[in-house]
């Protein structure tokens, strides 16, 4: 502080303290409140979704109640709506996707963390993450014009020849259909299961592996005993996360699944998932009852994905793996 005890009228130079405006707490109070409101918007968004879906679905809920979930007839003309075909479609296509994706993803994750040469690990991981970045509609485009012709020509006839005696592989082969839907879904969920599994497996402490090696175990035994069993919960969480993604995946599935509202035993038959029926039929919903039924499907889809994702997040938290949700 400039102690200018001046005896002459010459003005003392202003100190720093004199030049600064007095501090005020108003800015801080505003800042904290404002950012809090922004952060609370997350709850507002969830509330908004629930509100709008409930309002839209209400007529259907009132008319059909729980039978909406168990009835399989979907008839916009007679206004008889049951969402069972789509629930079935979602479950079946996700199951097919998981059956294909889970072994491949976990094996790839093992490869990336335990077996691959060091120089390959980051490039390969990046490549897989790039697969996740491909927009769904583009995979759908590729699905229609490349994957389906290929499968219809080279794979499906063989499947039918071998397994056509079962109801699953009987019936006419259209190309589009449930199996194609499941396959394209598997391509879409492989990246997320792989990357989360890879993170989980990398976080297994090396001490575990070293201890197993010291006992004379082979590489596979080390992986099985020391790594996989340690990471069980996290891997399960990764799988559920993949399932959550499969349940909600829309565009690619819409483009290859065929838009049918019937339940068929054959995997070659067309179908619909909850997400794809919305994409396929929402635009044509001319009357209120139809629209409300679709809102009801949306509500079920929303609740299912929330529950599945909740389960997955809790598993991952318990495993101490991913500390944040996977966005890709």
């Amino acid at each position, binding site marked *: 502080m400039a102690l200018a005890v001046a005896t002459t009228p010459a003005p003392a130079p202003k100190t720093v303290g004199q030049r600064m405006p007095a501090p005020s707490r108003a800015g801080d109070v505003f800042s904290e409140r404002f950012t809090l409101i922004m952060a609370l918007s997350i709850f507002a968004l969830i509330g908004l979704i629930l509100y709008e879906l409930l309002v839209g679905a209400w007529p259907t809920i009132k008319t059909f109640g729980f039978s909406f979930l168990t009835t399989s007839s979907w008839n916009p003309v007679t206004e008889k709506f049951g969402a069972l075909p789509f629930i079935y479609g979602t479950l079946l296509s996700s199951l097919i996707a998981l059956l294909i994706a889970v072994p491949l993803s976990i094996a790839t994750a093992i490869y990336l963390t335990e077996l691959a040469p060091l120089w390959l690990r980051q490039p390969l991981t990046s490549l897989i993450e790039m697969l996740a970045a491909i927009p769904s509609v583009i995979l759908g485009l590729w699905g*229609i014009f490349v994957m389906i012709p290929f499968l219809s020509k080279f794979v499906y006839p063989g499947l039918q020849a071998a397994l056509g005696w079962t109801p699953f592989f009987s019936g006419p082969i259209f190309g589009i259909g449930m199996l194609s839907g499941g396959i394209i879904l598997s391509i879409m969920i492989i990246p997320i299961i792989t990357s989360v599994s890879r993170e989980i497996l990398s976080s297994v402490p090396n001490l575990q592996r070293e201890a197993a090696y010291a006992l004379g175990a082979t590489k596979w035994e080390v992986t099985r005993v020391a790594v996989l069993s340690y990471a069980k919960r996290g891997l399960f969480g990764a799988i559920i996360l993949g399932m959550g993604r499969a349940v909600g995946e829309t565009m690619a599935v819409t483009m290859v699944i065929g838009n049918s509202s019937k339940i068929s035993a054959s995997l070659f038959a067309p179908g619909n998932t909850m997400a794809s029926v919305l994409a396929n039929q929402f635009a044509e919903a001319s009357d209120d009852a139809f629209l409300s039924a679709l809102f009801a499907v949306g509500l079920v889809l929303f609740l299912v994905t929330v529950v599945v994702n909740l389960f997955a997040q809790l598993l991952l938290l318990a495993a101490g793996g991913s500390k944040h949700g996977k966005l890709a």
Partner: protein
Amino acid sequence: MTTHSTVREWGDHHHARKRKSAFVSTVCVLSGVLVVTPLALVFIYLVIQGAASVNGDFFTQLPKPSGELGGGMANAIVGTFTLLAIASLIGVPIGIFGAVYLAEYGSPKLNWWIRFSSDILNGVPSIIWGIVIYGLMVVPMKGYSALAGGVALGCLMIPIILRTTEEVLLLVPQGYREAALALGIARWKVILQIVIKTASRGIITALLLAFARVAGETAPLLFTALGNNFWNRNLLQPISALPLQIYSFATSAFDDYHRQAWAGALVLVTFVFVLNISVRFLTREKA
């Protein structure tokens, strides 16, 4: 563990174990190859089918009606940027300032709930936003609009930007905050002028990632922006977007539309990948 009475028996068993391990390793390598095959195939076909069609016309012309030869997706490209702009007006401020609350203020319990809910919200299928905004905006406004499409995309953006920005802010070392506060600077100024400034590159990468994700979304636009084969200057009218146009052309009956769908897909994927690679580049330089 079984005991082995002879060395040779132990040797055989050991070899069997080794073979098993080698087999599993091979399976894992093959899985790795199999997993990246679709990526390679998608790219190859995009280039084969689409590259020839990505020409001047594509970027400057409007779609021709009913599959007539020629035309382009100029309006769709502009539409995508328009929708991204509208979405950013909602998504960016809410996402960034919400992240500021999580990183700089907040109580542990509330913050945990916000983060958790944000991750759950991230997992909700984007088509849900389409029908929610349909009910909230399209119905009362009695029409599809670019505005509705932008709002749907913006809502989609919020949880993405919130979480990634929060992570970026938390990376700013505490020492800078302390040093600034010790100079008597007000906390909000510290956050704005020191923390956010220091994290600015990371925040930009967070935004780019959000743009990359949202630019490729089709489902939320199906019943909000709807799509448009002509130029649109009015935000209260339907607007085209690249993913929408690709979808509509791919599912149409006309071969020329299919050809252009491939071109559009190639352009879209290139755009998304350029954004993603920029992010990698920006984050690598920091290290």
